[in-house]
């Protein structure tokens, strides 16, 4: 599928990403180290300051002597210096994170689609040789996604060294699922880097039908639901609910916002990762859409009253 030249481009691009990841991981470790040091120093300061205060009072009262050089002052200076360094490091990490997200928007997933390996009902695509999207890279992506490794995109799991597509009876079906999953992956990256152009396009499509947005909101609130429950909550008939769900899984919705739930013998529906991103963005952009969602559950703050 890829020419040798294209393959080299993929490998080079992944390598650039991995280099940035190493920098990011190093920075994070350093930051944690500084934060730990600050904590230790703070504890030390509390103890020393109290001791010094007692001593100072005693010296003044008993001997009329003024205080000597303060150890607490020194520790305070050290803490200030550490805090300054932490702030600088935090700013650097924010910049690195932005850079990483920017790279991830176009990061090639170095899977060799020509050499799939059947593993029971799953199909695995190994990475190209020399394409080092390894554990550190995967862990960092998960860290940015605020999830536990590996990169879990529903039926598609990206592991160090390979991509596994679950429940794929054929290579064609596996590639189709893989493409859907990577679209969701990129949508997640767009959402994290607040680049909403494509997401908003889909949000606007959702808003064209109250049933589309209604189903997504209901699934966000309730989790997995049967057609019967969706129809009841939205006050529409089951046939209409089925047609709307079906439409939302057609190829003109890519990535698909909803999918059939995986539990055996289940006719239930659930949100996909893309669906979660879309409905959250919908609620952020159009707070009035939240009214229905808020009618059950959320509390009013003092300021809202």
């Amino acid at each position, binding site marked *: 599928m890829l020419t040798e030249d294209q393959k080299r481009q993929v490998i080079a691009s992944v390598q650039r990403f991995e280099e940035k990841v190493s920098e990011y991981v190093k920075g994070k470790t350093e930051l944690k180290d500084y934060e730990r040091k600050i904590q230790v120093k703070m504890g030390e300061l509390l103890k020393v300051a109290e001791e010094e205060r007692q001593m100072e009072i005693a010296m003044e009262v008993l001997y009329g002597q003024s205080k000597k050089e303060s150890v607490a002052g020194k520790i305070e200076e050290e803490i200030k210096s550490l805090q300054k360094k932490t702030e600088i490091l935090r700013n650097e990490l924010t910049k690195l994170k932005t850079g990483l997200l920017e790279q991830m928007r176009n*990061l*090639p997933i170095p899977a060799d689609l020509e050499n799939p390996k059947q593993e029971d*009902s799953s199909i695995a695509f190994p990475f190209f040789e020399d394409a080092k999207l390894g554990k550190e890279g995967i862990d960092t992506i998960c860290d940015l996604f605020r999830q536990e490794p590996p990169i879990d995109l529903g039926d598609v799991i990206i592991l160090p060294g390979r991509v596994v597509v679950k*429940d794929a009876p054929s290579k064609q079906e596996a590639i189709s699922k893989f493409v859907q999953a990577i679209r969701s992956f990129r949508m997640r990256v767009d959402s994290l880097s607040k680049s909403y152009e494509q997401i908003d396009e889909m949000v606007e499509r959702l808003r064209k039908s109250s049933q589309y947005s209604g189903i997504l909101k209901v*699934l966000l609130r309730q989790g*997995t639901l049967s057609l019967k429950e969706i129809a009841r909550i939205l006050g529409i008939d089951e046939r209409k609910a089925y047609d709307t769900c079906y439409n939302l899984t057609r190829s003109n919705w890519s990535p698909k916002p909803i999918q059939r739930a995986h539990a055996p013998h289940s006719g239930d529906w659930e949100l996909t990762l893309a669906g979660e991103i879309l409905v959250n963005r919908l609620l952020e952009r159009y707070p009035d859409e939240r009214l229905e969602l808020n009618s059950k559950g959320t509390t009013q703050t003092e*300021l*809202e009253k």
Partner: protein
Amino acid sequence: MNLADIEHKCKEIDTVRKQLETKQIELQRLESEDKKKTQQAQILERLAKLRGDKYEGEHESEELMKTKKDAEDYQKRIKILEREVFKDLMDVTFPIPAEVPKINSERRSVINFEGTPCNHTIKFIASILNSNVPFELDKTELHPDKIIVTNVEKPMQVVERLEALHNNVVRLARIALGERDPDVESVVDYLYGSNYREVWEAVKGRKKITYEDLNSELEAKTPKDQKKIRNFFTNIEQILGGKFPFIRESPGVYGLSFLGSLVWKRYRDKYPEVKEIPKKPHREVSVGDVIEEEEKPGPSTLNKYLSNNEIKEVIYGKEVS
């Protein structure tokens, strides 16, 4: 822009508000009179129709229309003035003396304003949050002629509280103008992304919160869990510095500051409280693993057939394809 310089605009707002009130009372009277006249006019109009005549009378008196227009004009004028004042407040300064603040034995510091009192300005600022004068924000009172800072021991604390009050006034103006406050935004994003998200969400916007409240809210029974709750306050105070959204009231008791209330409101706007989608049980997948047979989802998609270019573009990125 000095607080005193905004005074004349706030005074005008007060005057126009009073004029509007008078006009609205007049409007009520006229509307009630007009209601009676309208009923009569309707009767006459229907009778005229029956007689084959055209009814020439008026449905709404000229006086009523004029009063309505006057009331609308006053409302518009108030809105324009309010907007101007909010803009002025965005870079307001306080007319305070250039001397180190004194603290009395009750741990209070009174900072008198130089020049004439700003009655109308302070009343206007207080009205934004439906408060009376003096107006209190985070244990700092704003009077027309002075600021009183309570519960302080050192002059530097007084200065910090004055700075916080200033920031809060600017913040109020910014929010009233429909703009987002960058401090609120950064704290919201920090809390959402931090390890303490769960603890912060358990605060639930309460004005006063204790360690015990949070322990019970989060069912923190082990010393490790309880330590995380204590660390939440100490660590985020370290990290957020002046943007710390709480006020320490006594050991283990915190109050949500004004900034904290705004942060909570914005947090819930940005990240609504919704029931989490139950996660599918995670399965580790490795080569050779036997994956249980699951019922396949029905043939509900029409997107199986993708072109090579489409596949390449999605998986390998636009640069490669």
